[in-house]
């Protein structure tokens, strides 16, 4: 459910229709396994050097032990990982599966609430279509958690949420409990195209920055009035849009910016200073390597690609070594997909980024590359306390790979979420779970 509700519980109980909604178990796979041990595997934990001939033991949805000498209880299901590799479940900090689904039709296109440049009041949560086959394909690629964000047509597009990639009929079931929400914002060409192209503001980057300033000025004023009203025991204002933005100013919602150019990122940082909020991450950020020191000093993370570039002017200066260069300069960097095909092979994206590191003379190893698709996205999504690494006490979000996870030939053999087996390659490959594909002649054959 909305984390925003917790902060807003006092001020706007009456405003939020879903305030009274059930706060039941969400984001948890239905059937948690009894004790499971994967033995004899090469384990990349994303938190320590690799473990050869290692064992990982999990029970009741949590990792119990991991190492080269783990006592496996007699009642545990034991899986021989001989020749196989184990990594944390992969995490994508920028996805639109479910809101920009396949099939993509005018009637399934829920990406952008293009009714105004500021639609902070909307949430991707309310549009996620769990039947999007993209979810199960991403699961087969080892993706266990993903941030579902609104698109970049609007300056302030709305809230995004983190889901556990489990099969579900409703989106609520998929939400990772108590995961922070995001406020998705966008600089540059997309808002200029959508609004400027229709003769509305913003037409230029001047307009983009001016609109951002105005929106944050409005939010600042709203927040002051709200707090004063509450102090005075008066009714709080009822403005969902402003309440979301106040959530950012309160530090409860993570602001993330779709932003490509270095100069634009710097401008957004200036705006954040003026209004006193901390930017969580720049996404896409193809020029982040030009301002790595600034991003490190500002403690702003970057989620980017290994190879995408040039599809528009603001993405023209992307370089394949970007992730490695940001890593070198101490920026919290991850890879992301933004795409339902790319998300299926985040391990290959990481391998490409690692190869480009080597090209640039930066000698990173598997231990770093695995972080780009596990622990780093977990950190920037505020869920690193429970997932993203293989450590005792963390959720048993685990992938068993058929071989080296950075080889193009390797497959995710087994995928566990919360300790429950949610994908088994031998059994599931070619089978169809999505309702959309069920009963379609020839599908899944």
């Amino acid at each position, binding site marked *: 459910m909305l984390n925003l509700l917790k902060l807003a519980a006092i001020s706007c109980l009456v405003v939020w229709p879903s305030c009274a909604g059930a706060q039941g178990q969400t984001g948890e796979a239905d059937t948690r396994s009894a004790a499971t041990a994967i033995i004899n595997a090469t384990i990349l934990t994303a938190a320590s050097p690799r473990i050869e001939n290692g064992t990982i033991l999990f029970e009741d949805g949590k990792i119990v032990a991991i190492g080269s000498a783990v006592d496996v209880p007699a009642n545990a299901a034991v899986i021989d990982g001989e020749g196989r590799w184990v990594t944390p479940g992969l995490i994508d900090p920028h996805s639109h599966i479910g809101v920009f689904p396949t099939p993509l039709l005018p009637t399934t296109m829920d990406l952008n609430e293009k009714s105004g440049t500021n639609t902070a009041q909307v949430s991707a949560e309310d549009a996620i279509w769990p039947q999007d*086959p993209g979810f199960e394909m991403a699961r087969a690629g080892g993706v266990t958690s993903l941030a579902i964000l609104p698109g970049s047509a609007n300056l302030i597009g709305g809230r995004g949420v983190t889901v556990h990639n489990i099969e579900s009929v409703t989106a609520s079931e998929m939400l990772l409990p108590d995961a922070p929400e995001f406020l998705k914002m966008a600089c540059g060409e997309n808002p200029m195209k959508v609004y400027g192209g229709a003769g509305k503001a913003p037409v230029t980057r001047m307009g983009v920055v001016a609109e951002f300033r105005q929106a944050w000025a409005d939010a600042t004023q709203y927040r002051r009035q709200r707090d004063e009203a509450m102090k005075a025991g008066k009714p709080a204002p009822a403005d969902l849009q402003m309440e979301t933005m106040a959530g950012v100013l309160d530090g409860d919602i993570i602001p993330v910016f779709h932003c490509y150019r270095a100069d634009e990122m710097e401008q957004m940082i200036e705006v954040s200073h003026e209004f006193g909020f901390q930017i969580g991450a720049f996404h896409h950020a193809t020029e982040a390597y030009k301002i790595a*020191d600034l991003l490190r000093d500002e403690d702003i993370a970057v989620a980017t690609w290994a190879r995408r570039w*040039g599809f528009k002017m603001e993405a023209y200066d992307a370089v*394949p070594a970007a992730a490695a260069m940001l890593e070198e300069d101490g920026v919290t960097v991850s890879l992301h997909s933004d795409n339902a095909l790319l998300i299926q092979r985040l391990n290959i994206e990481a391998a490409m980024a690692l190869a480009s590191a080597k090209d640039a003379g930066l000698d990173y190893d598997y231990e770093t590359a695995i972080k780009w698709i596990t622990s780093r996205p977990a950190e920037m999504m505020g869920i690193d306390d429970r997932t993203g690494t293989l450590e005792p006490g963390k959720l048993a979000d685990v992938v068993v790979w058929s071989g080296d996870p950075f080889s*193009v030939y390797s*497959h995710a053999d087994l995928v566990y979420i919360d300790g429950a087996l949610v994908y088994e390659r031998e059994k599931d490959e070619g089978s169809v779970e999505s309702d959309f594909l069920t009963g379609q002649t020839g599908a899944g054959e």
Partner: protein
Amino acid sequence: MRLFAILSAAVSLCFSPALAQTLAITNAKVMTAGEAGELESATILIENGRFTAVGADVRIPADARMVDMNGKVITPGLIVSSTTLGAVEINDRANANDIDASSSTLSAGADIQYAINPNSTLIPVARRGGVARAIVTPGLEAKTGGAAAFGGQAALISTAANGDAISQPQVAMTLNLLGSDQGRAAVFPQLKAMLEDASSFAENPSPERVSSFKAAKWTQADLQGLVPVMRAEIPLYVAAERASDIRAFLKIAAPYNLRIVFVGAAEAWSVADEIAAAGASVVLDPYENLPQSFNAVLASSQNAVRLHEAGVPVLIVPPRAGHDARLIRYRAGVAVAAGLPKDAALVAITSGPARMLGLDNYGEIAPGKVADMAIWSGDPFEPLSGLDALYIDGVLQPLEDRQTALRDKYRAKPAGK
């Protein structure tokens, strides 16, 4: 790096007029993409831009320049079967996208050779991915408005530095099956009539006959452009996804001897036998496994594998944007992971495209073929393998691009700047 230095020294002569000197590459694992298959510890001789010998027992001329590969892997230079490379700098709103001539009065008469910019920054980026040649296909996504229309003539380009880029123009014709906004019930009869016109014109292509053909608003260039298609001298690329569209096109094309190449073709596997029977080929991206629309409900990771098993020549491509041309080798690897034999995956990105065009002097390491070859640090389909060197027409190519220049520029900056 060291290898590159050695190679640079070894073949610097290739940039000079002294091309006649033989280059001998020894001790290489050669994936020939031809009948010879894979050769261990092989020697390759190159003279005048052509391979002159390949094999384990090659006699090396006394005056040859020798380069020891120490067991590195050599493949033919890669060939992308369908791309916008060279005709697009930036897709979106940069006045730098010339791939479609769809608003013009020409359809089949449009000719992409005039849109190729050899100075495009995309070309060195593709080169760095081991791509030596590419088939630039106009009009495959063109929206042609009311009437069905051909997309225009494709060109085979080279990624060689300091070249004019065009290896051969007019190598194929394109057609976006659903480019018009009409329903299928109108599109196919219209295309049928257009093929009848084109066939009839091809029998006697004299300019004065143009005005007698009425199935489309033909210009002379349009009908002329279709003559080699109807004579089966060049292939016709047909962009289609749905199985029923592939079937319908095969039906209207059946009276003619066309060399059909389906592009995209998400559902092709489900009609693989019919495609094989028609002698058609398929250009596909192995990543495309999601039902993007109701035309691609049967999209499958197994598309390449099943087509190959049915005997259909499969050509593997990365996403169509020229920016992504360098991704081709990983796409081949993904097809192998799905079950395509490795030799078939290599053919699909080298000799396969050349044979599909009927230009089989390209894409293969064999005596007499054009000396395009890529030298890899390991398995070329693996992302962790690197490209060590690329030869095009027997000439060692530079591997720097705008992206390495930007990288090095910013890495050279002192901290805090």
